[in-house]
């Protein structure tokens, strides 16, 4: 009798539990992917597309969502990581920051009322409203805000949502500098992979090194980049696509590249570059469709060299072997300017650049470092071009989060993302190795050798790259650990200097002969 009663009660509880699950939304703590909607922070973008409520932020700063069960798959697809059954959100009131365009006016009172928000403050200097939800922030809140043309950008007020003890932790980290305060730091696996964060304790600035981003231009007004832009006579570079001195990025690629090299560090904004401080020179020759002419590329190279660039970052290529392009790189080499080139991408299968070369990646100049892409597991990217002779080193190039025009951030793949890791590293090494970085062949070669000789060897990549001079480490990937100060003079190579006759042009080498 008792057993029957227990069984009956059990069935009732099970049915009740099932009903509760069916009736109530599911709760998740997630790390959101960078937003696809340029006017929204990632968390609000998730909310907009997954119909639910943003309950607040947990102590670790991750947002907690309440979504209907049928929305959970959509939520997962927009998340970098998902944690079910999360802890309670912090009890601190959640606020939103709603940026507006001063020319276009502010969001109307009607908008705020419909969205279930009340204004706390109008911070006119920063052109944004601080608003508080009357209840919770829902999908409808976000939709209503987006329907108001005056809203330029909406995001949670992250700092307000971080508990005091975590704020203290972050401030403490900022003096430690291994963990910068940039909110998207957690996504920047590439910086950890190259050990940049360990080096940042002592070396993080390359203020006197100029890195030219020869690309689609750069959004030099981006909050994460504007303080690190090279400037001369009010201009930040040159635009050879439109032939003017406003190389503003209309595509996004160059801004992403620039962010990896030198997004300002520890500024509580977005991401951090390999260099926290540097001078990014914006050179535009690729149009909105991402393509351009070799002739304009040559003009960019010459202009950047003439205006003092130490490192040229080139995340572009083509199959044509241009004599003019080769000559421009040689001119840069003679001036002592380092030329970092992306190896190139081909979807799902890559390409052997030794057999079917892409240029400038495959040029044999002594100032070239050609870069292939690796993923978070240290495997070659499925798309990366390779070449025992023509590719020198690997660097993070899959799932790279960086800046995009109009105060956005995005995750991109490509050797285009790997090259700026090396370009940024070169700037950092240059600043460390020389108190006064100058365009000189000697300085350039030393920086190049330090990077190539100290690459971290990965046996699985040995057949892909790094088997010819000036590279010294077959299957090597970028690693800045040699700059960590505890190990003596960080600028001294960990391996013997390279015999010059092998260094200057690419050729298969016998490593035994170099030692």
């Amino acid at each position: 009798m008792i057993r029957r009663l227990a069984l009956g009660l059990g069935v009732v509880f099970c049915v009740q539990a099932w009903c509760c699950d069916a009736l109530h939304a599911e709760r998740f703590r997630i790390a959101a992917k960078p937003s696809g909607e340029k006017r929204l922070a990632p968390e609000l973008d998730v909310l907009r597309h997954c119909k639910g409520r943003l309950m607040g932020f947990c102590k670790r700063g991750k947002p907690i969502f309440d979504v209907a069960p049928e929305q959970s798959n959509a939520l997962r697809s927009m998340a970098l990581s998902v944690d079910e059954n999360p802890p309670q959100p912090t009890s601190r009131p959640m606020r939103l920051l709603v940026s507006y365009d001063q020319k276009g006016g502010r969001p109307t009172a009607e908008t705020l009322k419909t969205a279930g928000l009340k204004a706390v403050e109008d911070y006119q200097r920063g052109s944004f409203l601080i608003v508080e939800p009357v209840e919770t922030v829902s999908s409808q809140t976000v939709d209503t805000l987006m329907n108001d043309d005056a809203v330029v950008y909406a995001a949670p007020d992250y700092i307000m949502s971080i508990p005091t003890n975590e704020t203290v932790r972050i401030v403490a980290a900022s003096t430690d500098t291994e963990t910068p305060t940039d909110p998207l730091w957690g996504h920047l696996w590439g910086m950890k992979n190259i050990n940049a964060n360990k080096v940042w304790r002592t070396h993080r600035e390359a203020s006197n090194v100029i890195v030219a981003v020869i690309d689609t231009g750069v959004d030099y007004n981006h909050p994460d980049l504007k303080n690190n832009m090279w400037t001369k006579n009010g201009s930040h570079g040159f635009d050879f696509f439109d032939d003017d001195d406003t190389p503003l990025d209309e595509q996004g690629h160059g801004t992403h590249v620039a962010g990896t090299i030198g997004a300002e560090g520890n500024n509580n904004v977005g991401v951090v570059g390999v260099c926290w401080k540097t001078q990014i020179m914006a050179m535009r020759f690729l149009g909105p469709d991402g393509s351009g002419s070799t002739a304009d590329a040559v003009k960019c190279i010459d202009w950047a060299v003439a205006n003092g660039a130490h490192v040229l970052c080139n995340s572009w290529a083509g199959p044509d072997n241009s004599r003019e392009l080769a000559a421009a790189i040689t001119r840069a080499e003679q001036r002592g300017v380092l030329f970092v080139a992306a190896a190139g991408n081909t979807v799902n299968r890559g390409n052997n650049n030794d057999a079917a070369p892409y240029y400038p990646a495959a040029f044999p100049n002594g100032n070239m470092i050609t870069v292939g892409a690796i993923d978070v597991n240290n495997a070659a990217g499925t798309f990366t071009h390779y070449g025992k002779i023509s590719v020198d080193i690997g660097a993070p190039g899959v799932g790279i989060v960086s800046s995009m025009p109009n105060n956005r951030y995005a995750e991109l793949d490509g050797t285009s993302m790997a090259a700026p890791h090396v370009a940024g590293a070169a700037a950092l090494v240059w600043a460390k190795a020389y108190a006064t970085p100058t365009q000189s062949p000697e300085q350039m070669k030393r920086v190049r050798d330090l990077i190539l000789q100290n690459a971290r060897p990965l046996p699985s990549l040995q057949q892909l790259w790094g088997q010819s001079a000036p590279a010294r480490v077959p299957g090597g990937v970028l690693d800045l650990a040699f700059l960590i100060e505890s190990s003596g003079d960080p600028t001294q190579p960990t391996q013997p200097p390279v015999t010059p006759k092998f260094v200057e042009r690419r050729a298969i080498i016998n490593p035994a002969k170099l030692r």
Partner: protein
Amino acid sequence: MTCSFEFPRKYDMMFLTAVGMIVLGCASCAAEPGKANPQDGAVHVICHGRLLQGVVAIGGETTGTTVSFDGMTWELKLSDEVRRQIEKEEHRQVTVEGRLRRVAGVAIPVRWIVDVEKLTKRDSKAPKPKAEFTFTGRFSPVMGKALPQSFEVAGETWPVAWGNETDLPAKAMALAGKPVIAQGTAEANTEGGPKKYPIFHIRQLREWEASASK
């Protein structure tokens, strides 16, 4: 990163015969788009525009040669023969014939590539006709829509437009799901930007079996 395998000798002849048949089949399809098998599917194009060589692109995602016309730019995949031909002569305005493909990239999400079969110089002062296309495939009608909105070619769906043609949509509905040959002109999709499909205006339509038997 290279791999090789040894083919058993007794299969050599069979293998070579099969390869030969495939090559012959492909060659005949390429030469006569009108008689291409819709099961294989193809979008053949003839366009007239400005040739640009030495093109580079982000991530190296380009064939290095493009043709630009009427607000569109398509990459050209050239055979060695055609490449040698245009290296000798400084072509500016050209007529290009070939098969159009839509290819996903890594840094460039969508690329339009023409596998060039023929490239000829054209008089830049002569009137320039619109780009022509020939689809071999099937209409895939969308439920609840009056007109077939798209055309299926080798498993990929291409959107089509009907313009002022009045009898063709009904004919297309009647032929929905059957192998057909559709011809017309291609125009830029000015609203969509370079990633979007061009607008394919259908001007002629016929069932494939009927045309093949002619």
